[in-house]
């Protein structure tokens, strides 16, 4: 798994490349924990290059999303690759997260 991060207008954006699962999730989970720890953190996760996601990775996303929402922040998702989209639909977690077609849409969603 490879991570590319950037910050635009106070929004933290993370691109996850490869597999995001129990074996590889630690760096992404640590990144999510660090960013979501600040008040009102606004996070975008770009899944365009994510090949696979498992329940451990989903749990870290849910945890970060809940932490952010407690302080009026959020974790939103964009550009879901097919395997990631299927998992979010099957688990109905697509109802839990705000999901955007593109990264630009996600930024617009944050009012950027």
């Amino acid at each position, binding site marked *: 798994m490879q991570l590319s991060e950037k910050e635009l207008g106070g929004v933290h954006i993370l691109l996850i490349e490869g597999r995001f699962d129990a074996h590889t999730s630690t760096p992404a989970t640590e990144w999510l924990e660090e960013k979501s720890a600040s008040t009102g953190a606004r996070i975008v996760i770009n899944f365009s290059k994510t090949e696979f996601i498992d329940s*451990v990775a989903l*749990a870290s996303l*849910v945890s970060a999303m809940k932490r952010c929402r407690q302080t009026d922040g959020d974790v939103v998702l964009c550009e879901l690759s097919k395997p990631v989209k299927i*998992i979010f639909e*099957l688990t109905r977690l697509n109802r*839990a997260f705000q999901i955007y077609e593109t990264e630009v849409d996600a930024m617009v969603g944050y009012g950027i």
Partner: protein
Amino acid sequence: MNTTTSAEDTIAQLQNQIAQLESDVDLITGELVARQDELVTLYNLAQAYSSILSEDDLINITLRQMSELLRSESSFLVLSRTSENITTHQFPHNTLDEALIMRWYASLKVHGRDVMITSDDTQFPLLGDVDAIIAAPIVMEKKIRGMVGVVNKKHGNFSAPDRKKAFAVGEQISSQLECIILHEQILAQARMQSELDLARRVQHSLLPQGVPNITGLDLAAGSTSAREVGGDFYDFVAKDQQFVFALGDVSGKGMSAALLMAMSRTTVRNLTARDATVCPLDLLETVNNSLYDDFSDVSMFATMFVGAYNTQTRKVQYANAGHSPVVYCPANGKARMLEATGVPIGVFEATLAEQEELILNAGDVLMIITDGFPEAENKKGELMGYDILFEIAEWGANPDHNASAELIYQRMELAVTNFSGDTAQTDDQTLVVIKGNAA
């Protein structure tokens, strides 16, 4: 006359020589006795080491014998298992300032593992009654983890051989401590393993032992944890015309998942025991209400499928909190995935779930599976995927095969074994197979 004087001189010279020789013999004898004492002390130390199993005993014996071996007024030892856990020991007790010992230790660490400290060394502070010290490092796993030393020779000064002896004791106690720590680690691992075995047995006992006989249904179920304990569970509760079946998968693995699994299973069991006619949607909502805080506190969630089958109507009502995959295949038909009807337990304070229903006629197959099956890996790192699940469901629902639920279960197990080969199972694998049969 001259002859007499000469003889007397010779006798006197001889007497002097004898006295000198006697003195030399006394010195040599004294030296021999001292060496013998040292040998006895070293022998005692070696004997004691061979039977010591506790760290405290090792330290106490080393301090006493080292003081005796080097004829010192006192001895001391520093042991640093971690940077926070540093202990000092002395023989006799409280003869040295602990802060001073720590300063010596800090100096020794700066100078590296092979440095010896003596009173000649101006870089090390000697305060109060301390005239001379010798200290050797205690080295474990190639790192300085302590120091052992002596203070003030009782008679005279510490010599070069004394330094060698101190260093030898340092090396000896280092290897002894490594043995003790290894022994403690092995014991701790054995204790942990035995506790895990017990936890595995307890957890196994939470799963149904066998499957119930339900009118109109043929059942098979089983669960294999990736580790000693797992986060999957399933349960069956039958009362009157209603048969409730539930399957859950706590995100994550190991002990934390196992504890939440036990809580989830118990909550489901309590609710169905209280009201056997409870509808799946209400059951999921109540489970979520009960466990939401517990799951949230540890940043985990559980997916859960609950179904209720009516033996009269053959109708299955179900609610599915984020669980996947659930595969349904009508007799002789095409398999399809039953999507979740709500978000997993522990994500929100409400599951946002809906309740769906289907009819389970004779020959129809319903498989509730945990992701350990489709996400099983082979040695190339490939995943088994979903297609094989559909193939097996369709094979089981094909009347030509006349497959029992047990046979469908076994086919799935065989598929995952064939696919994974020698690759270790990475996630818990649980499967409930329900096949409609003639009522």
